[in-house]
């Protein structure tokens, strides 16, 4: 079943168009930086971008930071929102269940496939970022946000943990979208619902009046992976981020399962 779903993901033009679009934003940014030679002032603009002009090695994480607030969650919402609802509206859901594929299995396979998509997207963006960064700005030893340089080996695990942190953050998004996907036969509706939840979270996160709930918002710790590039690593927000996402994943996946396993399939 996993291989079948994987094949569906990889043969679907939409997958690759989405990844191409995700990659194009950092590429466009890189072209502007290269042509103008003007970067954001240090301490302003998207994370890492101010240092990219001096060192292309930072461009992979800068690229991820660029797509993280909006583009990547939209892509994940669309993929996860369509996971069950899309099958329902295409009329294929009933034939999968009759085949038979267990409902629980189908749901978790869909989550696994969304995870594959997230990793695929993140890795492609990071890899293209590395190539573009190298070609445009040159690769030097990685400086930390705190100013000290870190060795290549050290940089590798920091980047790897960043990728995992971003992927887990996106799995939080995916769980919300997947839950909505089991409620409706419209993939678009589920995706829009998940995006609305994220926008609400991002707005509340800016609101001083919402101070008391801010640490529990799903988007609050998204950019905390920046702390992985400090010396020494500031683990506090990273671990909080992992924990919050684990809660969101458990709650929404549980809700999705409870709904889908007992639902009348009328599509």
């Amino acid at each position, binding site marked *: 079943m996993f291989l079948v779903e994987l094949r569906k993901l990889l043969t679907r033009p939409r997958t690759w168009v989405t990844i191409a679009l995700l990659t194009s934003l950092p590429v466009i940014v890189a072209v502007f930086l290269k042509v103008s030679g003007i970067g954001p002032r240090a301490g302003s603009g998207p994370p890492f971008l101010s240092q990219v002009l001096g060192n292309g090695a930072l461009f992979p994480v800068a690229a991820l930071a660029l797509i993280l607030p909006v583009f990547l969650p939209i892509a994940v919402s669309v993929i996860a929102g369509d996971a069950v609802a899309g099958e329902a509206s295409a009329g294929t859901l009933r034939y999968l269940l009759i085949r038979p594929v267990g409902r629980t299995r189908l749901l978790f396979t869909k989550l696994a496939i969304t995870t594959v998509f997230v990793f695929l997207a993140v890795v492609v963006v990071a890899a293209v970022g590395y190539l573009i960064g190298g070609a445009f700005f040159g690769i030097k030893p990685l400086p930390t946000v705190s100013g000290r340089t870190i060795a290549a080996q050290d940089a590798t695990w920091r980047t790897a943990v960043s990728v995992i942190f971003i992927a887990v953050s996106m799995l939080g998004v995916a769980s919300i979208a997947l839950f909505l996907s089991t409620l409706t036969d419209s993939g678009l509706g589920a995706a829009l619902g998940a995006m609305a939840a994220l926008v609400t979270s991002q707005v509340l996160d800016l609101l001083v009046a919402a101070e008391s709930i801010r640490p529990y918002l799903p988007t609050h710790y998204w950019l905390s992976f920046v702390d992985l590039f400090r010396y020494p690593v500031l683990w506090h927000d990273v671990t909080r981020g992992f924990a919050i996402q684990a809660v969101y994943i458990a709650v929404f996946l549980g809700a999705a399962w409870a709904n889908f396993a007992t639902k*009348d399939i*009328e599509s």
Partner: protein
Amino acid sequence: MSRALLTHNLTKRFGATLAVDHVDLEVHEGDLFGFLGPNGSGKTTTLRMILGLVYPTGGSIEVLGKPVPRKVRDVLPRIGTLVEGPGFYPHLSARSNLALFDAAGPGGAKRTRRARIEDALERVGLGSVGRKPFNAFSTGMQQRLGLARTLLRPHELLILDEPTNGLDPQGMRDIRALLEELVAQGTTIVLSSHLLGEVESICTRAAIINRGRLLAQDEIARLLAPTGRVRIVTDDPGEAERVLGASNGFHSVTRDAAGVALELGGASPEELNRRLVTNGVDVRELILERPTLEDVFLQLTNERGARVPG
């Protein structure tokens, strides 16, 4: 005779609506079973409950000897289905679609997959379908591909909802021949259809449902039992009318140019014939009038709530 499908008091309520109301279906092994009902009669909901897609609110289901929905995953591999139109991935070809569905569940050996797909496509007349994606198919081709999916592996029971939908007359004939061939090989088929002529010509048994209730369930031959009305073709209708009018037991004798028609009452056709011949009326034809399935269907469905099949 063992039962391929049994439901007892099967009931489904959606909010205030009673979609299926205490339905007792009984499909024997080897039946080509027609399942008839107007749109919105509860037919599809019943089929979906049998397949474990919709959960009943009351009653029980037994498919191939197993209780559903509790053991539905044990029986589904033995059932092939086409429910409310074929659902396929629009951007993939016929062969890729069939391969995906075959690989998604149990019982489809990878080693034989390609051969089984070619065989199934051949049987539904799609052998030369090529590589074009499903969304470029005509309705008839989509329907044939839906049938091909049920033929990928051998099944003991086929549940087919409007299988000839969108097919041209030749296509319908091909598919009917295919269904009869499958039944001859021992498959039990439940065929839901609006085409009453189709059900009448190929089915052995049928059930009629309307507004969630089972109105009739019997062998086709018995559903279409003679109405008791007889038509007699003779050269001398006047004399025939006189003879029959004078004898007791025959009612409402009417005459036209070609002969007479009458209600047999309690008498047998043999008796009627003897009466005419002994009284010097030559009988060319004596026809027992039988209702068409359409007559039976419309009579039953109109009696209990006026609704016309769509």
